[in-house]
């Protein structure tokens, strides 16, 4: 069997269908539409981008999405790390019980939104519990977690769904770390926090970064959860794009594509960082 460059390249041909045809065509369509003017005669234009920056509603939508995505991805990675550390240090006997943490991974985002709605709405389970405990007198006294401007419900839904996913990624790296290091550090008198900071954290730092990027980019452009949890302005980027693209007249469609172009350019930076980190991680593994 000759393993030459050319046979290797020939092996890649099947991917030209999903990647070359659909993916690149799709990106191309977005970019082309974003830079095209109203008439086909004119050259490329920046008018749609100018429109976005002038429109306070669109601007807020962008900033709001960045905030929600950053907050939920950060909390999900932190929570996922705690989860992974707990699972890693759990006595072997009870480990099968802990597998319930995988439930949110199986459930779709749609259902995460629904569960959050049931639990956190003003007449939800948590509000009922608060009433029974005498903390609130009626539904109005319960904070509006779902539909107020802070949109904590969105964050809760994303964190519930994504923290177990982050835990899964972190634990796959943790299992490669020799537990004897932790053992030794603890025997020599290192505290829990110090052991984590100096032994465990350096080992898992790259996967924390990559998990954050995956979750941040996903949340930034995802449609399902904000579609169910809805609510009024400020809206998530995906809902804004959807409304511009489908609900209004065709003349504003390029604005939707311009928003997507901004999203694409912004995401691309993180995608590049992501692959630089994974490459270093693999290099390190190969060196061991």
């Amino acid at each position, binding site marked *: *069997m000759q393993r030459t460059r050319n046979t290797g390249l020939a092996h890649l041909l099947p991917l030209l269908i999903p990647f070359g045809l659909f993916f690149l065509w*799709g990106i191309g369509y977005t970019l082309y539409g974003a830079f095209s003017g109203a008439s086909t005669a004119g050259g490329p234009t920046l008018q749609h981008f100018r429109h976005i920056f002038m429109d306070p509603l669109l601007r807020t939508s962008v900033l709001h999405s960045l905030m929600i995505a950053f907050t939920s991805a950060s909390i999900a990675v932190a929570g996922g790390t705690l989860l992974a550390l707990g699972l890693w*240090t759990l006595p072997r006997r009870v480990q099968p019980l802990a597998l319930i943490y995988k439930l949110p991974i199986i459930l779709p985002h*749609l259902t995460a939104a629904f569960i959050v709605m*049931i639990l956190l709405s003003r007449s939800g389970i948590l509000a009922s519990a608060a009433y029974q405990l005498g903390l609130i007198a009626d539904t109005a006294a319960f904070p509006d977690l779902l539909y107020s401007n802070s949109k904590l419900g969105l964050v809760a839904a994303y964190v519930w769904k994504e923290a177990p996913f982050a835990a899964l990624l972190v634990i796959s790296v943790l299992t490669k770390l020799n537990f004897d290091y932790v053992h030794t550090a603890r025997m020599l008198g290192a505290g*829990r926090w110090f052991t984590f900071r100096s032994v465990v954290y350096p080992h898992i730092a790259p996967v924390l970064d990559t998990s954050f990027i995956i979750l941040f*980019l996903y949340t930034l*452009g995802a449609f*399902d959860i904000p579609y169910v949890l809805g609510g009024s302005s400020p809206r998530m980027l995906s809902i804004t794009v959807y409304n511009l693209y489908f609900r209004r007249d065709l003349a504003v469609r390029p604005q939707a594509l311009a928003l997507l172009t901004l999203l694409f350019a912004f995401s691309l930076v993180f995608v590049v960082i992501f692959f630089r980190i994974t490459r270093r991680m693999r290099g390190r593994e190969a060196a061991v």
Partner: protein
Amino acid sequence: MKGFMRDGGVVRGTSIAGSSAVKRRPGVLDPGSTFLFLLVLGLLFLLPIAVLVLYAGARSWQFPQLLPRGFSLRAVEFVGRQYGAIAASLLSSVLYSLAVVALSFLLTVLPARALAWYPLPLKGVIEALFLSPALLPVMTFSMGAHVLLLRLRLSDTWVGVVAVLTVFAYPYMLRSLSAGYQRISPDYTVTARNLGAGFWTSLLRVEMPMLLPAFGAGASVVFLVAFSEYFLVFLVGGGAVASYTGYLVPFLKSSDLQIASLLTLLFLIVPLVLFFILERWMSAVFSKRGLNNGADKP
């Protein structure tokens, strides 16, 4: 939970003195912390599911009741009445998701082989490019992909849905298979080829059985990604292609929490059943061939 991690589970100096009957390695959670950790896990992940189960069987459950008032089979009866529509949408979702798994496998098996085994120029860049559809927000390319499908007259068709789902789901299969190929030595194939087997024969009969665990891992993720997706199916399927997510959304947005809860629970059952079947099938194949299915076990 944070507080628990900080002060719980600390095996203090006293245990080294040997007073405890059970020998525990420093760093492993002690029984108290273990119980707390499992309790938190239960509250976070089991309680919401339990609430769904209670809702599904509740006659009414309103603020400020902590538990439902009375039980009723209304939601179950509704599902019984709507059995045809629910089964049809579930079946459609399962079928197009399985088709996405199959198509992803067909499209990525050779590229994965090349990424693992062949010398390629700019291999890192090539791999990053091919994996990027899973990282970039779906919307950035789905609008254009939809227009392309419209032009190909594949919009609102089953084929169109499978195609567009494959575009963002195949990277998970590619990553999994190329990791799988990296764990297999090309020497097996070289031997098979030297003994006279052709390219496809050795691919099918030598490499595939060894690639099965990687396929299983990739297939589960691809299936979940396709099965859970709402937006793309709604965009490209246009209502003509039935999907369980599409069936479910109106209920999630309605105020009928009982029915929505029961339908949500159905969502959990299908993948669990399929994963169980996959697991059984894979171990059956392994025991038949006498292969070691314990790649992770010592």
